């Protein structure tokens, strides 16, 4: 019964995946699906270009309009992703393969590869020069990070809907399969994140949010460590994603803040009056504290994950840098680099978990602080 249900869920998920995959490959070109590029003739000695470690690292960290899978000499394998622009209210969409890595303009748009607007799609005039008077169109493209977001959402929904169905079908039985690996983690979120921050009475309300945030960050961190498609997109290293997560925490904290919470910020008890009036120093400092907490959440996750990726990529680039000098130096360094890379990957697995844990823990602590009731200062008698 469960198997039948799971197979229909799997079937639906598979159909949805195919649909999404098919639509990401949709483009107006004749050579559809995965495009195999040939090196542009006017590139010159493309395969003799020296190995640029900085550019390679940056390319692996930032977002892109195509999902690059591999490059072997002249053979590039990448998935071109749709470009969706809103230009003065007009919706324009096409495949990013039309840009040919930023060389060509298409339909009056060009992907800038250097200059002030590097990485952005801007309008160009007929002869290809930048149209400086036009506004930059709003870019709603399905980029690499967006596809990775969809993939991780699919993974999350698949896993959790299937185990939720199993819990509904077989309550009060021993966990089996996927349940047995996720149940300890879910209980860990409840016992070590939700209850310490929120207390035994109020934690249930926030469990959905804490579980979602924890598993979202954890799965995306782990997916970022997988080197090839569908992983490796560095989603949680994108500061926009972490900003949205921190914004969720901030908005929830603001909306559940009770009178006690706001009083502690703007009219803290026990603080001398001359710090609050005429120049409200103390309220200002406390208000800045309210703003820095989500900001720090954002930067902590972003910097941890991005720094981990940069370190790993840097050690891999060392091999090629040394190899360019002397092939045997490259071989020698590669032993050391790979050993260190394995160690760093283990560390990054730990960091993936710790960052999810710290984000969820701090969120629950902020929620708990926002809902705290008023404590009267107690008279302490000396104990013997």
């Amino acid at each position: 019964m469960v198997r039948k249900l799971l197979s229909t869920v799997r079937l639906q998920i598979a159909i949805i995946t195919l649909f999404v995959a098919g639509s990401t490959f949709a483009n107006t070109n004749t050579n559809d699906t995965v495009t195999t590029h040939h090196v542009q003739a006017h590139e010159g000695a493309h395969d003799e270009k020296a190995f640029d470690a900085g550019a390679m690292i940056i390319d692996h960290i930032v977002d892109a309009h195509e999902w690059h899978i591999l490059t072997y000499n002249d053979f590039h394998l990448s998935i071109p992703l749709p470009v969706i622009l809103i230009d003065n209210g007009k919706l324009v969409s096409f495949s990013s393969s039309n840009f040919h890595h930023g060389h060509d303009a298409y339909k009056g748009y060009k992907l800038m590869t250097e200059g002030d607007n590097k990485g952005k799609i801007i309008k160009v005039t007929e002869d290809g020069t930048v149209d400086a008077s036009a506004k930059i169109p709003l870019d709603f493209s399905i980029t690499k990070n967006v596809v990775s977001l969809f993939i991780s959402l699919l993974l999350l929904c698949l896993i959790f809907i299937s185990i939720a169905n199993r819990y509904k079908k077989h309550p009060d039985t021993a966990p089996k399969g996927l349940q047995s690996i996720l149940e300890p983690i879910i209980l860990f979120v409840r016992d070590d994140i939700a209850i310490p921050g929120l207390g035994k009475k109020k934690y249930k309300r926030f469990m959905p949010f804490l579980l979602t945030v924890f598993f979202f960050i954890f799965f995306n961190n782990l997916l970022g460590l997988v080197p090839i498609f569908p992983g490796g997109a560095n989603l949680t290293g994108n500061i926009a994603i972490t900003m949205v997560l921190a914004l969720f925490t901030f908005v929830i904290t603001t909306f559940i803040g009770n009178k006690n919470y706001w009083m502690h910020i703007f009219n803290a008890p026990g603080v001398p009056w001359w710090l609050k009036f005429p120049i409200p120093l103390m309220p200002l400092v406390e208000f800045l504290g309210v703003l820095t907490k989500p900001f720090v959440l954002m930067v902590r996750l972003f910097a941890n994950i991005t720094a981990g990726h940069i370190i790993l990529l840097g050690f891999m680039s060392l091999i090629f840098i040394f190899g360019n000098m002397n092939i045997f130096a490259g071989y020698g360094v590669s032993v050391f680099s790979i050993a260190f890379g394995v160690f760093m990957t283990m560390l990054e697995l730990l960091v993936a978990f710790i960052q999810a844990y710290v984000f969820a823990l701090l969120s629950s602590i902020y929620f708990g602080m926002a809902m705290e009731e008023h404590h009267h200062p107690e008279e302490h008698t000396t104990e013997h």
Partner: protein
Amino acid sequence: MSLLSVLLQEAANLAPVAKMGAGIGAGIAAIGAGIGIGKIGASALESIARQPESVGDIRSNMIVAAALIEGVAFFAIVVCLLILFL
């Protein structure tokens, strides 16, 4: 006088050396994080030695404190990266 003009000319070419500031900043951030997390680790180990049955509690608190301090160090790293790439 000519020494001053030579120095002035050279000072105008110091733009790439400004990136050295990023490196020094990152190094100082690493020192700060190292000292901070080292102190946490030291006190955690000491308290485990004093009361071995509270290993679990101490370990989780140590990891949380280390993550928070690393967050501060990463602020400095992000600023240094901004110097290099912006």
